[in-house]
Structures are given as structure tokens and as C-alpha cells.
């Protein structure tokens, strides 16, 4: 049992997430497009490649590295049977995100976030609830262009977060930020596809190793 859990941690890329995406895929899905120069957040300046006709372009090399780290992390969480919660407050992609969560067998929250969901869970749900072990933000702003409350709450409850940060977002409290576009449908579909594939891959690997260990 210990070997089951310790073995993946010895390799840097045990689940081989690098092969799921390439730079060209990211470019075709228009992940590099940011908002205008006036919307730029101060802490996103290291992730921006440049500015053309007032529109910010995100550095895709850095995005590749961050995306690989984030996908690796989610795969490890899914391998250890953790609860993953997809959060996004974009109305156009609400259905897509909920569908992705359902296909993975994980959970989603794309609706109005009630204040005490994480911090007051004893009152909201019951005393013996299990809170999510990872929260994935497919858009880290809410409908009023402010940072989503769940980022702060997850930091308070010691829950690691993975989030797609656009040029107008604050990447500070997110453990694994992924600088990238969160407004285009192609980009969102790409992210959903990537997360779905990593989670399913990690779960299959877990089932295979359990069966393998039982046979031995």
C-alpha cells in the first residue's frame, strides 16, 4: 500500500502529461491572447511576452511549463483518490465545465458561490463532510471582475488550487497558476479536454496498479 503511493512520487513526470499538448495546440486554441493593456494586472507582467496594438500576448513557453506542473499535480491528486472541484463563473462555459466534471467523475461549481461553503461547511452540509482536495479554476474572476472568493477560502482551508489566470487576474494566492486565455471557447474546450484526459488517465493507472498488486 505504501509502495502504491510512494512510487509515482519518485518520477518527475510519472503520468507523462507532456505528450497531451504541444505549443502548436496552444497557439491554435488562441491561448496566448490576453486582454488590452489597460486591463493588465501588475502581477501578470512576468508572464506576458509582449504587447501588440494594445493587446497583451502571453508567453507560451512559460504557459507550457506551468501547464505541465499543474496537470502533473492534478494527476497525482486523482491517483490518490482526492476530490477535485471545478470552479468557473463564466456563463458561456458553465454547461461545458459541468459536463467535463461529470465525465471525469469529479465535482463542479459554476453557480453563485455562497459565502460559507468551505469555511462554514459544518453548518451548510453536516459535521462529517469531506471538503475538496483540489480546486481547479477555469476562470479565476467572478461576474463582477473581482477575484473569486473560493481562491481566498481555499487558501484559508489549506486546499491547493490550480487556476487559469488571464492578464487581468491576480495569480498571487493560486498554488499552480496557468497564464492563458480564459475567454475564447476554443481555449476553454482545450483546457477541459486536457483536465479530463489527465484525470481519467490517473484513475485508470490507479485501478491497474491495484489489480496488479492484488494479483501478486
Amino acid at each position, binding site marked *: 500500500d505504501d509502495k502504491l503511493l510512494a512510487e509515482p512520487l519518485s518520477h518527475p513526470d510519472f503520468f507523462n502529461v507532456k505528450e497531451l499538448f504541444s505549443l502548436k495546440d496552444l497557439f491554435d486554441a488562441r491561448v496566448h491572447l490576453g486582454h488590452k493593456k489597460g486591463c493588465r494586472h501588475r502581477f501578470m507582467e512576468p508572464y506576458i511576452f509582449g504587447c501588440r496594438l494594445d493587446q497583451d500576448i502571453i508567453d507560451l513557453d512559460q504557459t507550457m511549463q506551468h501547464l505541465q506542473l499543474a496537470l502533473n499535480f492534478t494527476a497525482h491528486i486523482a491517483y490518490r*483518490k482526492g*476530490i477535485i*472541484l471545478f470552479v468557473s463563473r463564466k456563463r458561456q462555459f458553465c*454547461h461545458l465545465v*459541468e459536463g467535463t*466534471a*461529470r465525465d471525469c*467523475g*469529479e*465535482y*463542479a*461549481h459554476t*453557480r453563485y458561490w*455562497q459565502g460559507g*461553503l468551505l469555511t*462554514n461547511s*459544518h*453548518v*451548510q*452540509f*453536516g*459535521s*462529517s*463532510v*469531506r471538503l*475538496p482536495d483540489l480546486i481547479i479554476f477555469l476562470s479565476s474572476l467572478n461576474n463582477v471582475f473581482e477575484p473569486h472568493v473560493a481562491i481566498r477560502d481555499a487558501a484559508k482551508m489549506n486546499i491547493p488550487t490550480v487556476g487559469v489566470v488571464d492578464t487581468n487576474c491576480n495569480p498571487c494566492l493560486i498554488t499552480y497558476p496557468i497564464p492563458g486565455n480564459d475567454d475564447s471557447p476554443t481555449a476553454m474546450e482545450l483546457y477541459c479536454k486536457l483536465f479530463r484526459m489527465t484525470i481519467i488517465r490517473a484513475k485508470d493507472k490507479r485501478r491497474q496498479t491495484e489489480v496488479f498488486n492484488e494479483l501478486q
Partner: protein
Amino acid sequence: TLKLICTTTAVQRKNVGASGPEKYTEAFIKKQIEEFNLGKRHLANMMGEDPETFTQEDIDRAIAYLFPSGLFDKQARPMMKHPTEIFPEQRKIQWGEDGRPFHFLFYTGKQSYYSLMHETYEKLLNVQKYQDQLIAQDLPPKKEKKNLAGTRWLTKIELEEMLLEKLSDDDYLRFIQLLQKLMALPCGDTEEKYIEKFSREVPVQLQKVVIEPLKYDERGVAFSTGEGTRKTARATTVVYDNGTGKITVNGVSLLSYFPVLQDREQLLFPFQFLDKVGKHDMVCTVSGGGRSAQAGAIRLASAKALRSFVTEKEVEFMRQAGLLTPDPRVKERKKPGQEGARRKFTWKKR
């Protein structure tokens, strides 16, 4: 070594906030049902009756006999009912042994409502895709407008009962708007079945009132009866056709029973309205109430009787004139601390 034997409960329990209503697991409810069935058989044996044919009424009688209680509230007395009646139908615990919740939208708080919105939106997308396919094939979209006259959407309370969850007014409105949007598109058959779950039929109000047909006398004269009330007066009338306008009240003629002009005008009103002043004979019996109340009661009774002689349109005119509505005003009770229903005692400054 000294050991603390008695500790207060305040020391044992930390400062945990109030949790919501207790939730039950399915296994707990099943156990309760088994215990209930066993207890029912034991009770039947105790009372000397057959355990196979021991109904709920027998249980109630037996419990009332064995545990007599003088408490006022029936719900406070000892009772033995099937667990489904005692434990309110609420959601049982939503997660399994490993802690993972069953529903994928559990962490939103209102899982059934949001999953309903998700499904409805999916239906909407499917319909739009189907429409696009039809347009691509250059086929005209179906325009069968479903008749919305006799249907209404579910009320908020009915929806709450269906979902077993509390909703806010905004949530309910949003759901209804989504359904209306779905209805507005040229729908396919599958979507109609889905929408039917959320619509109820409204029975047309006017159909309930049945106008009786005319009855015929031994002499061959058509007549019809009517009943009316006003305050404490009750009246029954029989209106005959081919008459001269003769009116008999309690066996006495109209002039002697109602000396006041106002009461006689009240009686005349339905006939005047239908232009049938001298054409009908009327025989009525009336009891209770005072002078005015009896007049009002006979007026209502005669209007009801006249419905059978007249077309439906004129019945509608009568209804709009207020001839067919019983007057709901009754004497208001006197309250303590006041002289009458509304009059207060004289206020004295000192």
C-alpha cells in the same frame, strides 16, 4: 494518581456551531422499518389479535389503550407509526463511506435545482442543434404551437416539494424563464414529454357552474327552482312561465308581506334586468333574518331560478351585474374592551 471521574459535558464538547437538521442514512431507515414490523407483531400478540391482520387503526387504538395520555396536542401523545411517516422525507446523507459525495453538483449546496437547470439547458442546446440541422438540410422547421390556454407552470411550493430543497424566488423565476424559452422554439417530441412534467392543467372555471334544465308542471307550464341566502335569511323560490307577474311569499301576497317599497324593488330587479317584468309567476318561502335580508335572499333565489329561462350570454350579463353573487357580509362580532364591533368606549382624559 487522582483521576477525574465526573466531567461536565461542557468540557467534553468543543465550541461546535449548530448543525442543520439531522440526516439519516438509508440503512438506519431500513432498520427502523424492521423494528416497526416486529413491534407491530408483538403488539398484536399482547392485545390477543391476529398479527397478520393488524392494521394501523388497530395499532392506534392499542397504543391509546396501553398509554393513555391527557395531553392536548395529538402530536405530543405516544404514537407508533411507519418510519416513513415519522422521519420526514428529506435527503439522506449524500456521501458514501469514503467521503465522496454521490452527486457531481453536491458542493453547490442546491444540487437538485442546479442539476435540473443543467438538464433543461442541455435540452435547449439539443433543440437548437436539431434546428440547425433542419436549416442545413433546407427543411422548414415545424411550427406546431402547443395550446397554452389550459396549462400553468408548477408553483414555487410544488417545485420545492419535487426537489426536496428550499428555493429562492429568483431561482424559481429563472427556471420558469428557461422553460418558456424552450417552449418558444419549435420543439421536438422528446422535449414536450420533458416539459409536461413541469406543467399542470387548469380546469376552466365557468364549466363548473351547471345551469339546470327547465322542468314541466302537470299543466304543462315550465318552471325552475332557486335558492338564496343573505345574512341569516334562507329563501327558496319557484318561478313559473306564462304568468302575469303574481308573487306569493310564504303563502301571503307581496304587498302584505313587504309593505316597504325598497324590498319590493329588490324583488323586481332580476325581472327588470331581463325585461321579463309581467311574464313570470313566483312562489317563494323564506325564513330567518330581517326585512331587508329576506328581500335580498329572495332576489338571489329568483335570479338563480331565472338562469334556466335565459341564454348563456344573458347569464354572463346577470353575473356581471352582481345578481348571481351571494352577498358575503354578515354581522361582525362584538370585541371585549369595546362597546360594539368597532365603537370604542368614551375616552376620558381623567
